[in-house]
Each structure stands twice: as structure tokens, then as C-alpha cells.
């Protein structure tokens, strides 16, 4: 079957997820055409293995993001039996718009692809998994880091098409985020400190890691009660906030029942504590018995390296 991949750009370059889109679909047989909106990353896309050809789609409308304009421009070129994009915000919108234009259905946030042609995807925020059999033509978007990236060594032909569409959404102003601290109750990732941090000033080290992760910083009741500098709004626990992030990192927190009540249902829990018997290890998916002074700098370094890629 013919596949069209809509590549993803980031700050003027090809987003690494594009290679994953190729990796996922190259085994389906048939040719793969990569469309590069605004020509972003076209040359890099051509060097991914498995790509049959790259179309650099250029036009005025690609100066800023306008879903209807982009999809109107891309749809005539997205002729595959399968139209694939990344499940990013833009990827989903484009896949959905192009699918509607073509009169085909779209399935979003796919985490598994099988012959046959079946897809697996999470639903209800991951509380269940859905398996659907598709009869193409269809559009799908793939969740990042669910599929292996295709390697390099490709040498596809890049052609350029000038195809703009009317822009009806005008970008007036870029807004800088006011640097507000992310609220504990809203974050996907939380890193919390307890009395084991020793001094409220040491919470700055948690903020450094939080910044790398895009996480919020929380605290145990013990920390809030002991130190004025740690406000109640950061408290996670029975009388603080109940949180269910994807990842909860507890540093220097023993894991008293009141704290557990607030974070026990987090998807994944990492605990760093120097006391091997601390109750927090009873709920942690990954427990590290170490002092935070030793472990935290290593964590910061590893995360910085991982997330800059």
C-alpha cells in the first residue's frame, strides 16, 4: 500500500519523530512519500532509510501555522492509502483535516501497528487499550517514542511543489510564558521534596531538575510544616493535593500514609531515599537507595543529556 508521511518540523528543522514514522511504516510494503510542509527538513527527510520520495511543499501559507490552509495545501498531495503523521498537536490537526477532506477516517495516538491491518492505541487516558482493524484508506497519527526510528542511509529524490492556500488565521503576537511555576495539580511530571532535603534552600535543586523535565515541584507535609519557605500550595498528600501524574519523583520523602494518599495513583513512581526501609519504596516502581546529594546531580545530568536529543 502507498503511504504518505507528513513530516514534523521543530524550529526550522526535521523533528526526530519523523524517523519514527518511517520506522513504523516501512515494513508495510509499498512506497513511502514524505511531505514536508513549508519544505522544512526536506533534505534530512530524504536521507532517512525507507523513503521513496520527498515532496517539499512550499508556499506563503507555511510562514505560520494555519490548520485549514496547510491541510488544503497538503491534501491533494497526500494520496496514500495510509496518511501518517505524528500525534503531536499539529500532527493530529493536520491528519484530521486531511482525512476529512479526503473523506476517510482518522485514528489518533497509535502505539502499535500490526499487519492485517490493526492498530493499538490507548483510550480513557490510558486506562484501557483499544485494538482496531482498518481497511485503508485511512489516516493515523503515531505516538512519539512508541516506534523505533528508521536509520539513515536513504537517498530519496526531493521535489518541490508550490502550493499555497488562503491563510485565514493571522498570528499577531508571540507570547512569552510568564515563567510561572507549574501547579502541582496540573503537571504530568512532579518532583517532590521532603524533610530529607535538609534545608528549604535545597529545593532549588529540585527546580533545576523540574525545569529540564517540564515538571512541577511538590512537597510533603513534613517539609511544608517545618519550613515557612515551602508554601502549602506545594503540598501533596491527604490535606494537600491529590495528584495522578505520569511520573512522580519523591526525593527525601519517607512515604508516610498521608503523603501516599496524595500520590499513590501516579502512573510511575521513582523514589530516592537514603533509608532502604522507607515506606515509599513500597509503592515506588523504581527505588534508589542513595542520598539525594549523591543522586540528584546524576539525575539532572542524565535527564539533561536525554532530553536535549
Amino acid at each position, binding site marked *: 500500500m502507498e503511504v504518505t508521511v507528513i513530516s514534523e518540523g521543530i524550529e526550522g528543522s526535521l523533528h526526530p519523530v519523523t524517523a519514527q514514522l518511517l520506522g513504523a511504516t516501512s515494513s508495510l510494503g509499498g512506497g513511502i512519500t514524505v511531505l514536508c510542509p513549508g519544505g522544512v527538513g526536506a533534505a534530512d527527510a530524504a536521507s532517512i532509510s525507507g523513503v521513496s520520495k520527498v515532496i517539499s511543499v512550499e508556499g506563503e501559507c507555511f510562514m505560520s501555522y494555519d490548520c485549514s490552509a496547510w491541510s488544503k495545501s497538503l491534501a491533494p498531495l497526500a494520496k496514500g492509502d495510509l496518511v501518517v503523521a505524528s500525534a503531536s498537536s499539529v500532527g493530529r490537526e493536520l491528519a484530521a483535516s486531511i482525512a476529512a477532506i479526503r473523506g476517510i477516517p482518522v485514528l489518533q495516538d497509535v502505539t502499535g501497528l500490526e499487519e492485517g491491518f490493526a492498530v493499538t492505541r490507548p483510550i480513557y*487516558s490510558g486506562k484501557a487499550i483499544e485494538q482496531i482493524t482498518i481497511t485503508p484508506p485511512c489516516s493515523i497519527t503515531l505516538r512519539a517514542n512508541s516506534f523505533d526510528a528508521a536509520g539513515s542511509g536513504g537517498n530519496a529524490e526531493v521535489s518541490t511543489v508550490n502550493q499555497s492556500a488562503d491563510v485565514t488565521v493571522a498570528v499577531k503576537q508571540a507570547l512569552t510564558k510568564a515563567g510561572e511555576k507549574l*501547579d502541582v*495539580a*496540573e503537571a504530568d511530571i512532579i518532583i517532590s521534596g521532603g524533610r530529607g532535603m535538609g534545608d528549604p534552600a535545597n529545593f532549588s535543586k529540585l527546580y533545576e531538575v523540574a525545569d529540564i523535565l517540564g515538571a512541577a515541584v511538590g512537597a510533603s*507535609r513534613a517539609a511544608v510544616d517545618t519550613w515557612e519557605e515551602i508554601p502549602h500550595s506545594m503540598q501533596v*498528600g*491527604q*490535606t494537600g*493535593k*491529590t*495528584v*495522578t*501524574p505520569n511520573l512522580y519523583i519523591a526525593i527525601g520523602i519517607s512515604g508516610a*500514609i*498521608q503523603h*501516599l*494518599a496524595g500520590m*499513590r*495513583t501516579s502512573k510511575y513512581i521513582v523514589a530516592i531515599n537514603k533509608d532502604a526501609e522507607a515506606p515509599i519504596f*513500597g509503592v515506588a516502581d523504581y527505588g534508589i537507595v542513595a542520598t539525594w546529594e549523591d543522586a540528584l546531580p546524576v539525575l539532572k545530568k542524565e535527564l539533561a543529556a536525554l532530553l536535549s536529543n
Partner: protein
Amino acid sequence: MRALPRERSGNMAYEALDFFDIDSLLTDEERMVRDMVRDWVEDRVIPNIEESCRDGVFPDEWRVEIGEMGILGAPLKGYGCPGLSYVAYGLICQELERGDSGVRSFASVQGSLAMYPIWEFGTEEQKEHYLPKMASGEWVGCFGLTEPDYGSNPGDMITRAEEEGDHFIINGAKMWITNGTIADVAVVWAKLDGEIKGFIVEKGDEGFSAPEMKGKHSLKASVTSELVFQDCKIPKSRILPNVKGLKGPFSCLNNARYGISWGAVGAAQSCFNSAREYSLSRIQFGHPIASFQLVQNKLSWMLREITKGQLLAYHMGKKKDDGSWIPEQISLAKMNNVDMALEIARMSRDIHGANGILDEYPVMRHMANLESVKTYEGTHDIHNLILGRHITGIQSFTREP
């Protein structure tokens, strides 16, 4: 401090115990009203109540928001009042008291004890003047019956009113008055020529003051006051013309007691939920304490009592709605439900172990509150004797025949 988007905030849904599916008996309107109040309590009371309790404060924002919801004077019709069913009124009390008995007391007093007597016994002018602003929460009301020396025996009250030209002069004192210090309007019962009559006293009236009573261990997030009348002068138009004797205050109390029978269920549900969750998380001897037989016995008893109490309150509500009720039925509902709620609070505290004494958990706050709820609006024992009189035809309140 409004709700965070529920998809991200991770708060586990409050599932109110409803073992015999009372929910299926409710109308859509009753359910929507209940859910509206439940959401408000979840958003605004639960996160703030422990602090309010510690500080001994009833936050004014709650008065405003309760007013905005339009739930004050729930079963009253006309004059800007909600005109809801008695079942809806009960559900409102249940949800408020699941938060805190003090919050529910604010609404009970406002609706059943201050708005109701004006609605039932007042003149058209009085109804039009007071009720709309009380329904919106703009004016707070209170109810002055109990005195320092006259609680269960209100009939012998000594607060008295005397005619003087175009005015009444009131002398005396009332005690244990919820909302008193913040009230704009006080419905005061005093003897005029030896007969109990109702009078509307307003904040600012000459000779009237309402100092707050401090040092409470119970209903800390509620304002409890004395009402002091020292040659308090009010215009004659302030008398409630259409009632005399104890019948007046008692009919108000019946409405409030009915609401309390539901409110107690709410407090019990809160204590039950907390005990259940705690017992499932607390590990001792390698097992959650919910796996121990003695704990299951307690939880099972709580389930039974709450279920019975719910059915009692619901049926009482239906009878209030169709008019086929008698006051003794309300006495039974109030005393039974408050009694079981207090026992459940104590038992729940026991299940929480030492943790139960912290305000991390709501149980001891409910327990302390319910001591007041057991005493006010007719003590447990007074209701006992009301039923005793009903059963036997013989009153045993006093030594005289």
C-alpha cells in the same frame, strides 16, 4: 480557588455511599441540585475547611457563593425563594454537611429558622421586604429562641417584650444563636403579656447587640452568638402577627430538624468514606487493616446504619412533600440519624488510629460537630421523650402532670 480541570487534577471522585440506590428515586432536578452543591463543597469547602476550623471563622465568600447557588430557603415558594421539593432541601443539607456541619448550620438557620417564620407567619410587607434579600444571601438571618437558662424548656423563657407607643421594648438575652453576630435579621421569640410572640430585630436596632461566643470545640467554622436586648426598641410593624405560643418556633424547628436528618447522613458518609479508604491503605502486620474481621465488622455496621438513615430521610422528605407528616416522625428521623452519625464518626476515628486525631482527616471534626448537632434543635433525649409521649400518651418531660 476554583476547580482544576478534572482530567488533570487527579482528585478521586467522591462517591457517596448509596447502597440501596436512593439515587434512582430522585428526579433529574433533585440530582442536578445535589450535584451542584456537591461540586461546590468539593471545590470550596473541603480544601479550606480545616483552616477555617483552626481559625474559627466562617468565610464570607461561602455566604456569597451559597447565595449565588440559590439554595437558601430551599422549600419556600415565591418572594425570590427557590421553591424546591423537600427531598431537594434534604439533599442540599446532606451535601453541605458532608463538608461540615457548621456550613449546613448556616443554611439551615437561614432557610428554616429565619426565612421560614417570616414566610409562614409574616405580613405581605415583611415577606416582600426580607425574603428576597435573604434568599440571595445578601442579608443573613438568625433565630433567637434558646436562652442561657432555658434550652430544652423554651416555654419558660424570660425574654420579654413590652408595648410602648409605636414600639416594642425587648429585654433579655438569647444564647447559642448560629449566625447571630453576622446576622442582619434576627427572628426573636419573646413573651408579650406572658404569651410567646415572634419579633423581627435588625442589626443596628437600638439596644441590640450580638457578641460572638468564643472557645468552642465544636462547629468551629460556624458563628455562634449571644443576642443581648437591653431596652431594645423596635417598631410595632416588626411583630409576626400570625402566630402565638410555642407553635411558632416549633414549626420552624421541625423544618430545620428535617434538614438535619439528611445532613447527618452526609457527615456519616464522609466519615465512612474516610474510614474505608484509610483501612485499605493502612498496612499492619503485613496486611491492610481492611482485611481484619473487627474492622470489617465496623465498616459493615456503618454501611447498615447509613443505608437505614438514608431511607428514613428520603421517606420523610416524600411525606413532607405530600403533606402527610407529623412532627413525631421528624423527631425520630433527626434523633436516629444524628445518633448513628456520631457513632459512625467515633468508630471511624477508631479505625484511623492515631492518624484520626489529626485534621489531615475529617473524622474528629465531624465527631466534635455532631456533639452539637445531637444537642441542638431538640436534644437527643427530648426527641426520645417526644416519641415516648406519642407512644404512651403520657408526657414525661416534667414532674407535673
